[in-house]
């Protein structure tokens, strides 16, 4: 691809992001997450991150072509926040699946993922307890992540505030749980631990395992 230096047309290829469709209906994650909550979360909250990201990208394109460095600098925060929101939520939807489609069902005991979880935490149950304790303790808004360390290829837990992404901390995420209040408030009010206890019933372990194996390559 030929790069046109200083051309206003090069940056015109910044693509607008779109809301990924869920692979299940809004009421398919009940009783863990209600249709009301899921519809708000996907069609309002996630959509807003995408809208704001696209608007900021357009502004960035404009600022870049005008070489308006102050504006370029000012846009970094809003892009980082909304891009993070878009990426984190996109992963989250894939990490969930209806109970009737295998939500909560662990991979085989001798799969690479389960073996590695056992190596790190003793058992999958221990891992869930660890994950929940750490994730419940996040102050304010954030996410709990299980990921593969990009250097060592080992499994690692990481909690992050707001819309930070684990990719910026050397971790390829394979599983994430959103603990912003909007992720659970409608169904669980202020009792975040109850949400975390129940969310494992809809975790899409097949997806987590696929991502794990992919990350090891």
């Amino acid at each position: 691809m030929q790069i046109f230096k200083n051309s206003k047309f090069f940056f015109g290829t910044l693509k607008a992001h779109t809301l990924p469709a869920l692979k299940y209906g809004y009421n398919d994650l009940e009783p863990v997450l209600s249709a009301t909550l899921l519809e708000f979360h996907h069609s309002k909250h996630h959509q807003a991150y995408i809208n704001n990201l696209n608007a900021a990208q357009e502004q960035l394109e404009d600022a870049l072509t005008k070489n308006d460095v102050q504006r370029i600098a000012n846009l970094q925060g809003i892009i980082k926040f909304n891009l993070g929101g878009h990426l984190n939520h996109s992963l989250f939807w894939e990490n969930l699946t209806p109970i009737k489609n295998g939500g909560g069902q662990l991979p085989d005991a001798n799969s690479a993922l389960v073996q590695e979880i056992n190596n790190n935490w003793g058992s999958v149950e221990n891992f869930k307890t660890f994950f929940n304790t750490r994730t419940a303790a996040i102050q304010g808004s954030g996410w709990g992540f299980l990921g593969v360390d990009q250097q060592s290829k080992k499994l690692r837990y990481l909690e992050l505030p707001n819309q930070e992404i684990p990719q910026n901390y050397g971790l390829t995420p394979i599983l994430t749980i959103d603990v912003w209040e909007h992720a659970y408030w409608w169904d669980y009010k202020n009792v975040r631990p109850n949400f975390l206890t129940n969310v494992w019933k809809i975790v899409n372990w097949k997806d987590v395992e696929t991502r794990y194996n992919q990350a090891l390559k």
Partner: protein
Amino acid sequence: MSFVLDPLPYAQDALAPHISANTISFHYGKHHAGYVNKLNELTKGTPYETQTLTDVVKNTYGNPATVAIFNNAAQTWNHTFYWRSMKPQGGGAATGQIKDLILQSFDSLDSFSKAFTDAALGQFGSGWTWLVEKDGKVSIIKTSNADNPINQGYNPLITLDVWEHAYYLDFQNRRIDYANLFLTNLVNWDFANQNLVNKAHL
């Protein structure tokens, strides 16, 4: 002595339709009450148990060993301040001494309102938007999570809770609508004027 959940200065439906009775019921009865209960649990048998709430907020800030106490003390403090920052039939243009101070720091009351709502939106994640005073000048600051401006030497005048639980039921994710409504229909300028005198941070 233990910490108490201060009574709401008005009935739970008094701010409706702007903030619903349901929101107040959960926000006050579960979130705020929860912070008070946790604070009592954590301070029992510690020297903090007999300090004033403001002193606990000052004394536990910035210390990893007391971060849990700080978070619950500050959230208790912040919420009590938030309820008083609003009143039924509140809102509108600032009046009294606070109006003069605002006009000294901002070009107009409208540009103050814009700066306030920008700050509310600019707090990515959970936190609070504050109008504060220091050395006779007012400014707008935003804090994240439980943080309180008295720890930075500011005198708080009014606050807006921008944790999602404050506006989720009534506004879903439309924080801008919530912040605008706070200014047009709820903000209690009398409270702001009282705080110019009371100086909670001292």
